[in-house]
C-alpha cells in the first residue's frame, strides 16, 4: 500500500487489457478533466505499465495484473467506466490537493 500527494502526480496511467479500447476512452476523459494541470495522462496495456508511472487507474477486474505489472505504484481500481467515484476522487485530489492511496 503506497500513497501519493495529488500535487506530486506527474504521470497518470490508465491501463486496460489491450491498451487500445476502454483505457483510451477513459484516458481522453481524464485528460480533459485534468487540462491545465501538469499531469500527463497515458493509456497502456495492463502488462506493460511504464516504470515512471505515478498513479495507475484500472478496472478492478484487471487490478491484480496491474499490481504484478507495476508493484509499489499507487493503484486506483474502479468499477464503472463512466463517472466512477474512485476516479472522481483522483481527479479531485490532483486538482484540489489531497492524498491518493492505493
Amino acid at each position, binding site marked *: *500500500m503506497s500513497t501519493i500527494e495529488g500535487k506530486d502526480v506527474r504521470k497518470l496511467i490508465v491501463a*486496460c*487489457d*489491450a491498451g*487500445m*479500447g*476502454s483505457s483510451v*476512452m477513459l484516458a481522453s*476523459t481524464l485528460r*480533459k*478533466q485534468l487540462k491545465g494541470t501538469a499531469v500527463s495522462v497515458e493509456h497502456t*496495456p*495492463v*502488462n506493460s505499465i511504464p516504470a515512471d508511472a505515478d498513479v495507475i487507474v484500472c*478496472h*478492478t*477486474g*484487471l*487490478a*491484480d*495484473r496491474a*499490481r*504484478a505489472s507495476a508493484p509499489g505504484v499507487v*493503484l*486506483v*481500481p474502479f*468499477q*464503472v*467506466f*463512466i*463517472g*466512477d*467515484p*474512485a476516479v*472522481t*476522487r*483522483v481527479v*479531485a485530489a490532483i486538482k484540489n490537493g489531497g492524498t*491518493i*492511496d*492505493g
Partner: protein
Amino acid sequence: MATPYTPTVHGTGVRATIQRFGGHLAGMIMPNIGAFIAWGLITALFIPTGWAPNKTLAELVGPIINVLLPVLIGYTGGRMVHAQRGAVVGAVATMGVVVGADVPMFLGAMIIGPLAALILKYVDRFTAERTRAGFEMLVDNFTAGIVGAATAIAGVLAIGPVVEKVTEVAGDGVAWLVSHSLLPIASVIIEPAKVLFLNNAINHGVLGPLGVAESVKHGKSILFMLESNPGPGLGLLIAYLLFGPRSLRPSTPAAMIIHFFGGIHEIYFPYVLMKPRLILAVIAGGASGVLTFLVTGAGLVATPSPGSIFAYMAVTPKGGWFGVIAGIVIATAVSFAVAAALLGFGRANGDQPDEPVQDTGTNDTTATNDTDDEKRDTTGETAAESVPATKEA
C-alpha cells in the same frame, strides 16, 4: 468503505494467469487490426463476388492474408518478448510457417514469433558477457541472423506442418458444431469469459485465427461474430436503463452509445459484475444471436474490431446484411427481455443493492455513488436519490 480509494484487490490467481496469457495472444493481433480491416475492405470490394469486382486489385487478397498478416503477428509477438530484435527474428521465423501453408498461418505466427524472440533473448544473454569490446555489432547481427534463419527453417519443416494440421482439425471441429447447430452453446462459455475481461483473448486469440481460415475458404465466417456481437450488451444496458437501480440508470445511455457505436464492450461488464445473475441474460442473448446467424447463414469477411455496429457493417459481405442485422437485433431483444425479468422489471430493486458484488472488495454504494465527492464523503445512503455524473460522455 473504510478505504474508499482501494477496494481490496483479490481474485483468483488462475483467472489473472488466464487473463495474462490471453492478453499476450490478443496483444499480438490487436495492434494489427488496421491491417485486418484493410484486408477486409479490399476483399469485400474486389473479389469476384464483391461490390466492385476487379481482377487486378483482387490479387492483393491472397498475399496480404497469407503473408503480410501472419508476418505482422509474428513481428508483434516477437517485439513483445524481446523488443526490436525480437520483432525482426519473429518476422523472419514466421516466413517459415507461412511458406507452403494452405491456410493463413495465424496460429503458427502466434507460436513461432514469440518463440524465435525468446531464443534470441537467451542467445543475447549468453553472448552479452562474452563479446569483446568492438565486436558487439558483428555478434548481434549474426546471432539475430542465425536465430532467424534457424527458426524459419524449423518453421518450414516442423512447426508449419503441425500447426496447419491443428488448424485444419480445429476448423473441422467448428464445421461439425455448425452442421449440428451446436454453436449457440459456445455462448455459455464466451459470455461469462467476456465479463472477466477475457473478451480480447477469446476473440483475437482463438476465434479470429480460426475464422480467417474459414473466411478465406468460404468468403465469410460466423466465428467472427460469436464474441463480438454488440447485441447482448446493448440489451442488458437497455434493461438497466429501464429497470436497473435508479442510481445507475442515468449512466446507461452514454454506456450504450460507447458500447454499440464505439464498440468498447468493456463498458457493460461492470453492469454484469454488479449483479452477477444477469450473466444469464447475456448468455441467452448471445446464444439466440448465434442461432440467428446460423439459421440465416450469416458471416463476416474479417473480424469486426472493435465490436461496433459500424465495424460489423463494414465487414459484412455483399448480400449478407439481413442475417447479420437480424442476429444483432434478436440478441438485443432476448438479452433485454431476460435481463428485465431478472431485474424484476424494476420492482425488485428499490434502491438497496441486493447482490454482493463479485470479485471486488467494494460494495454497491461505491459503484453507484458517483456524484461530486465533496458532497459524498459520507457513506452512500443517499446515493440512490442523487444523479450520477455522466457529463464526460
